[in-house]
């Protein structure tokens, strides 16, 4: 990471503000209607790091898909810097729990995906892909195929594929959910470092309370389906943070209580 810090910084546009205004979303399940999000309103500051916590199946991923523009909401408004979200855009990139790398492309070509789709070519493409791969520590694996990577490396490649677009909003859906605990801890710090350097707004779903408190400035706790905002916790701690910080322990007890899991320790 020391060497990565010396690399030229990519020219990220500053993070964007996200507005979620009375958003509801329901799925049509062959006649039956499944309400997943109900009247949710949240304002997210540009450049902030917000974590979403909530019970499994409550609609967190659905909310991220709405912000990404992959689906329009059933009701309400979603805004980026005050303008309605009309569809997906490389300004708002998603990293999923599965790396979903294209198995027929090398790591390099996977990372170049967005630039290829946007018609960025030549020297600029090479430069941006090279920088992104170096940033996630995969410069030496440019020619490897996804099946040759470990889980952590694959997720790093997915991260490179996202940041190469110089997004203003990075959307992370349980990005570290499938990694072993050591890789996870290492990548938590790397993600925070990346966010701090680049300045994009980060919206991350996690099922790990501690991870949310270690990484985010703000933790939104959602209710059972249909998702409503239960609590909005400010994690008023400077970075780098310490896992053993008593304030984190305090917030953790609070968050677990809000999720209906009363900490008995």
């Amino acid at each position: 990471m020391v060497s990565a810090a010396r690399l030229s910084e990519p020219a990220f546009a500053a993070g964007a503000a996200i507005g979620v205004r009375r958003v509801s979303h329901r799925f049509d399940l062959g006649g039956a209607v499944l309400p997943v999000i109900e009247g949710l309103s949240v304002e997210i500051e540009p450049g902030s790091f917000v974590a979403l916590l909530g019970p499994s199946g409550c609609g967190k991923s659905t909310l991220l898909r709405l912000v990404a523009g992959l689906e329009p909401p059933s009701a309400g408004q979603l805004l980026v810097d005050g303008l309605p979200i009309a569809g997906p855009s490389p300004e708002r990139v998603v990293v999923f729990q599965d790396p979903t790398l294209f198995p027929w492309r090398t790591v390099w070509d996977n990372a170049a995906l967005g630039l290829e789709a946007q018609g960025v070519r030549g020297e600029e493409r090479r430069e941006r892909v090279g920088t992104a791969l170096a940033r996630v520590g995969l410069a030496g694996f440019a020619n490897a195929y996804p099946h040759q990577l470990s889980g952590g490396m694959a997720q790093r490649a997915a991260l490179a594929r996202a940041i190469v677009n110089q997004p203003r909003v990075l959307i992370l859906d349980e990005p570290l959910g499938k990694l072993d605990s050591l890789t996870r801890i290492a990548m938590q710090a790397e993600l925070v470092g990346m966010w701090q350097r680049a300045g994009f707004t980060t919206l991350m779903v996690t099922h790990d309370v501690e991870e949310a408190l270690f990484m985010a400035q703000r933790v939104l706790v959602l209710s059972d389906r249909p998702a409503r905002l239960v609590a909005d916790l400010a994690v008023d701690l400077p970075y780098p943070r310490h896992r053993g910080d008593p304030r984190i322990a305090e917030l953790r007890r609070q968050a677990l209580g809000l999720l209906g899991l009363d900490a008995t320790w």
Partner: protein
Amino acid sequence: MSSASHVQQIAAPLHVAPRFRPHALLAFAALLWFAAAGVSVWVPDADDYERTALFALLVGAVGAVLAAASLAEPALPKGLAARLRGVAPWLAVLPVLLVGWELVTAKFDLLPRPFFAAPQSLLEVFTDDWRRLGESVARSLFLLLGGYAIGAAVGFVAGVAVGWSRAVGYWVHPVLRLVGPLPATAWLPLAFFIFPTSHSASTFLVALATGFPVTVLTWSGVAGVNRAYYDVARTMGAGRAFLVLKVAIPAAMPSVFVGLFMGLGASFAVLVVAEMMGVKAGLGWYLQWAQGWAAYANMYAALLVMALMCTGLITLLFRARDRLLAWQKGLVQW
């Protein structure tokens, strides 16, 4: 890989003078080929056979090549040597089979004659009738490859369209469902009636036989693409053309190749029937012509050539697949 060569570097000085030893099984195989040549030279033929000497010469030549290979085996390139060792058991069994065939036919005349040909009779077909046989191969290949290319291209495009577009799927699916399972040869009378030439009719039949499996498997490949791939590409600014050309099609390629293999198999069957019934050229026609004249040696020779042609084409397709789908697990070759 680098670690393996490293080990070799360390290990090399251990046997400073590698012991020179011919490969035993290859040498044994060479001996058997020589023996087979000897049998055909010294055991007298039961009848007049024109090519016994040439046959013995060729069999002996194989023995000579194998003898040389068994001596040179340690010095041969690694890949070639490994392949030779791999086929060595076959190389040892083949001359035994050849001698057996030779003895029951040419030497002792134990099998009913017109139906069972001696090996030198097949050889005679190749030396005396190569012009007609060669032309038949050319005509067959021309017809097969033309029809296959058309069928594969149309099937691929149709499969992608059906897999991608709900509207196209709505209209094409029932047609495929109804017409697809029909064997292409069932169209034969109609095709020869509709098309202006028997060649175009046969090309159509081969294309039809190829097109159906290619369409269905391309379609199922495209329909089965992980939706998350589209989500990823869309958030990064991919348009429709990008989603089809750079996501759906590459993801569907393994399935497309299954269709291409099935189509190739089906096209062989149709080719032979079309040549027998319609175009009066090619290997299928040659087979029928040989049967009409009770020229069984010609028939066996044509069957052998056809088998070689089919397996050659299948091998080519395997090569193409291994190259294009090198990214697939287990297929990766460095």
